[in-house]
């Protein structure tokens, strides 16, 4: 076992990630065996549909958790983005391209709001999250006059945006998600932003005393998250068409679950985009499998809750060992 752990391949990919991939494969096999008809493209498609928007949410929150903070306003903010920009398209008849940009912009604004309060005012992140979450819900509701918004179908005017998910039968969304993840990984591991975010998440004061403007970079982590949430919103409506106000809470937990499962530490400083991606797949597959089993969504909620507790506790133990 030790030899396996120390082999070059394992070291490169990461032991945790290999375990996760193993879990993913195992889950898939179990589902295929236990559920008639699970093997096949429809369930695969169902899983992927879930992966796209959840994946971008998870990627976003990974940056925030890497700084040692948290953002559980991402679900409602995602809906807020989709609602506001969708409303503008439907009622004010702005061109689709503008709606798309607007969607991401709303996410960006929330990211700036959250990041500013956390970085420059030292407001505890969970309070900012709570307030932001409800402000997002409220603003969206007010803007759309509590109506739910449906984005155009593929054949309708403006429906071209759906090609981010599917071009014919080709899962464009998967490609875009993986590309997005790759870009995030590059940002996190190969740019200044990523370096500062990871270091300040690990030891903020040491980074400050090295002459770095930690406030700026801390806020940027939340801004990046906001942008990714805006992108997630696009994938959500491209897949599920309709968004309702006052929704979105459950996706918070699932996004955080995917991130934490993947090896990102709640304490900050340690983050893995690859792990997040695999974690998101696991959550999405879980949800699809549970649906196929005829079990309620509730089972998935409970399981996800337990998974996060286990993952974070494992992180707590690992941290104690590291000390």
């Amino acid at each position, binding site marked *: 076992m030790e030899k396996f752990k120390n082999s070059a391949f394992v070291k490169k990919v990461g032991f945790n990630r290999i375990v996760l991939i193993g879990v993913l494969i195992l889950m898939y096999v179990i589902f295929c065996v236990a559920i008639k008809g699970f093997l096949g493209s429809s369930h695969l498609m169902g899983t992927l549909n879930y992966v796209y928007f959840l994946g971008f949410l998870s990627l976003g929150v990974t940056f925030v958790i890497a700084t040692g903070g948290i953002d559980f306003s991402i679900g409602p903010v995602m809906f807020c983005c989709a609602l506001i920009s969708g409303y503008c398209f439907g009622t004010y008849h702005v061109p689709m391209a503008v709606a798309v940009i607007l969607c991401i912009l709303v996410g960006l604004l929330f990211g700036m709001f959250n990041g500013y309060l956390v970085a420059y005012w030292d407001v505890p992140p969970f309070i900012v999250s709570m307030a932001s979450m409800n402000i997002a*819900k*409220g603003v969206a509701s007010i803007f759309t006059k509590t109506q739910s918004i449906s984005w155009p179908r593929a054949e309708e005017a403006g429906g071209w945006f759906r090609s981010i998910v599917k071009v014919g039968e080709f899962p464009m969304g998967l490609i875009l998600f993986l590309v997005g993840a790759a870009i995030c990984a590059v940002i996190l591991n190969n740019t200044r932003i990523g370096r500062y975010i990871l270091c300040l998440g690990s030891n903020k004061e040491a980074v400050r005393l090295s002459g770095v403007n930690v406030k700026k970079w801390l806020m940027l982590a939340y801004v990046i998250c906001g942008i990714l949430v805006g992108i997630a919103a696009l994938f959500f409506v491209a897949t599920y068409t309709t968004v309702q106000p006052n929704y979105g809470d459950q996706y918070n937990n699932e996004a955080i679950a995917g991130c934490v499962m993947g090896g990102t530490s*709640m304490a900050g400083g340690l983050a893995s985009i690859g792990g997040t991606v695999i974690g998101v797949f696991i959550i999405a597959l879980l949800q699809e499998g549970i649906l196929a089993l005829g079990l*309620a969504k509730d*089972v*998935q*909620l*409970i399981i*996800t809750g337990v998974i996060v507790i286990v993952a974070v506790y494992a992180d707590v133990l690992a941290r104690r060992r590291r000390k």
Partner: protein
Amino acid sequence: MEKTKKKSVLSLFSNQKYIVILVVILLAAIFMIASADFRKYTTFVTLLDMSYYYVLMGIGVAFPLITGGVDLSIGTGMVCYALVGGYLVRNAGVPVIVGILVALLFGIGIGALNGVLVAVMDLPAFLATLCTCMITRGLGSLLTFKSTVPWPTDKQPGGWFHTIFKITLANNTKIPLGFLWVIILTIIMAFVLKHTKFGRYVIAIGSNKEATILSGINVKFFHIMAYVVCGLFAGLAAIPYASAIPTIQPGTGAGVELDAIGGAIVGGVSATGGSGSIEGTFFGVYVICLLKVGLPFIGLQANWQQVITGAILIGTVMIDIVKKRRAVATGQAVA
């Protein structure tokens, strides 16, 4: 002789507790002036009816907040306990009193779970309770087989529990009895916080956990108890909730915790722990409830309340932070 600051009337008002009372009065006044409908007695009763479960949740969550933590599972928890209790009444034929007891016990159980996760396993409070929030949401739905659950109405057998909160007189006026209970509970819990060992140590843990441990106090026990009390009150809140909401739906309840937590913080509970009062929480929650009920009367959609609550929450915390920064800068406090 050490010069003790004379408690002038002015310094009294720098205490958040008293500012909140002012705000409640001000808001009520504004709404009453702006809308004739708001002045009606029935509005008053409606306001109180929907306030009970918020106040109870607020009282409960004040304890984890004061320890420097939080409990985000109170909203979905309350719904879950109400669902399970009501399901047993409706489908298993147990008497209503048993249904109520089940709700309370369930609340205590989840509270204990939260306590262990935070105090023993060292998980961040917001995360641990976010997870139990998900878990209770799932459980509530699962255990009732996804059905919506109506508790007995006041005409049906077992409907007596409604009279805890509201008595209908012969001429159809309704007396909001529940207000009395809520006030009594506030007074009791205020006493607990200020004058019992449990309350004292909850404050100490939030203020300086290390020093409290060094004083030989069993910090883990009291830390867990703070969450148990919170769970108990979430269970308690399930009862007026069941009375107010004719049919309880699974999957609801998320977002309600903001109003309770926001109410506590507006009422003076510190976001970082160590200080706060139950009386303040009482009034803070009523600020939130007043906004919820009153805004529609002046033409603003209910959703404005969400935005305003969020803004008030952040504003309150920011003011607190400014005060702290000023104290450090003038050398009055150690950073």
